[in-house]
């Protein structure tokens, strides 16, 4: 077998929003404009890129693999990405690392001013972690000192696998909910209502019982609430 194996996925047990690695991503809302980005690893800048956000009929997101930006670039020019917003809405950049150990940071500047620094997430940002290793995890919001728990149950071979994404709101008063149970291979999306950093760390391995969530996925935060409202309005049939 000649194909390389992504062993970092199996080793990953700690996920920090200020040191992005495999299985974790940061989702940052963007308004119309030109952005210049830097990818840091430790104290070094390992790559640069640009994002152009334009207005369109529908907002969209762009996935940016930090490994690609940090990797070899044939023409030496910064890589360019595109996303769209719609009127009174925002577009999104999804920063992630497809492989390798954690440690990436992203800094975005728009019109010469700091627009985003992944070392400190802001309200409206989201941090997502896909957990594949069964066990008991602790979730922790840095500045706020919030603590919660995630139980990841072992996937059952032979049963139909349904990957899910559970949303946890990160507010001043705490995580909501502060305990999540899910199956290996599912994701937790932290929606930030205040500036902070998020850490998820494996505390103990073992069998945890996964509980499927009830109801639809909920995205919190000012911008997301707006979008959610508009999405719901479009879904709802017009009243006679």
């Amino acid at each position, binding site marked *: 077998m*000649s194909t390389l194996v992504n062993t970092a996925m199996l080793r990953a047990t700690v996920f920090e929003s200020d040191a992005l690695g495999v299985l974790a991503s940061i989702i940052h809302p963007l308004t119309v404009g030109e952005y210049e980005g830097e990818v840091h690893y430790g104290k070094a800048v390992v790559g640069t890129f640009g994002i152009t956000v334009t207005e369109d009929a529908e907002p969209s*997101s762009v996935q940016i693999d930090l490994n690609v930006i940090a990797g070899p670039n044939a023409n030496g020019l910064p890589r360019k990405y595109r996303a769209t917003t719609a009127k009174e809405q925002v577009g999104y950049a999804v920063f992630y690392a*497809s492989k390798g150990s954690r440690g990436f940071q992203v800094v975005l500047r728009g019109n010469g001013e700091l627009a985003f620094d992944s070392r400190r997430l802001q309200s409206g940002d989201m941090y997502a972690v896909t957990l594949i290793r069964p066990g008991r995890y602790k979730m922790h919001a840095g500045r706020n000192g919030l603590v919660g728990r995630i139980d990841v149950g072992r996937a059952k071979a032979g049963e139909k696998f349904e990957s899910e994404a559970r949303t946890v709101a990160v507010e001043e008063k705490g995580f909501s909910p502060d305990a999540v149970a899910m199956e290996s291979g599912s994701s937790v999306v932290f929606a930030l209502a205040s500036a902070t950093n998020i850490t998820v760390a494996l505390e103990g391995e073992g069998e945890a019982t996964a509980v499927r969530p009830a109801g639809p996925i909920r*995205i919190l935060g000012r911008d997301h609430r707006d979008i959610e409202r508009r999405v719901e309005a479009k879904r709802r049939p017009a009243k006679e």
Partner: protein
Amino acid sequence: MADVEIALSESTVQQVFRVLRGKLREQASGSVDLVHFSIDWTVGIRLEKGRIDFQSNNTVLLKELDIVYDPLVVTPGLNIPKVCVGGNCILPSPFGCIIRLPRYCFFEADPDLKVPLDLSGLIRSEISGTCGIRTEHFDDPGNAGMSVWQAHAQGVPDKWRFFLNPGWLDIDLIDIADTVGALLDKLIAAVVDTILGWLPDWAQDLVEAILGSFADLIRDILDIGDDIEEWLSNLLGISIGLFDLAVQLVLQHFAKKTPIFELENPYPIMPAEAMSGGPVLVPVLVPVVDPKVVVTDPELTISASIGV
């Protein structure tokens, strides 16, 4: 009218046939690309059993000649799908998905895997058919520039050769050993072990939860249904063309490579003789002209004229 007639009984030719049958040892190999996988194959064939029957219509019936495939190794090249997690849509819209989480994959590309399946000696097919007798004059290249006496003395004379010349041959797959099913299970277990063996138990469960049973996935890729014999027969017979190849090799063996009988030409009717105290007399060699073969129910007769 023929000057010479040689008659061979059916039992004599039967014994010759058994010797010729044992001489067939052919090997071939190749590869073929199918829809979802490729196959590398190596095959050797040998013959067992079977008999010939003389017919009254100048033909020989070839009956129930078994082809044993040994070695027979088929090596499927499987393209296993990447195994990925993540990718959920976390912000849907009526027009699609606004935010989708990244996907993370265990392999950086679709893994390709080759695991050999050794079916040596486990498959048999049977050939039956009708043969005529083909006569061919063989000009031995080893005697170039020699006189006929020199060629005779050196053991490289020209020859008349008589081959079984199949008119039609029919091949049937007659036996697939019961153990083939177990071997196939073993192959699938080896593939699963190669792909998943390095993973911790919990990750194996996750992979199998995502892809379904890995063994079932491989069976699907290989398109193995409930009937393993039918699958294997199609794979060997249609996809690889093994049975056509076997017929071709048997044809070449009997019709071109291995004569059932051969006759030196010119034929030595008197050997070399040493006179006491005198010179050595050369052998008496007479040319054999226009030999003809007639097969009847009890015997095979070769008749020929001699002289120039």
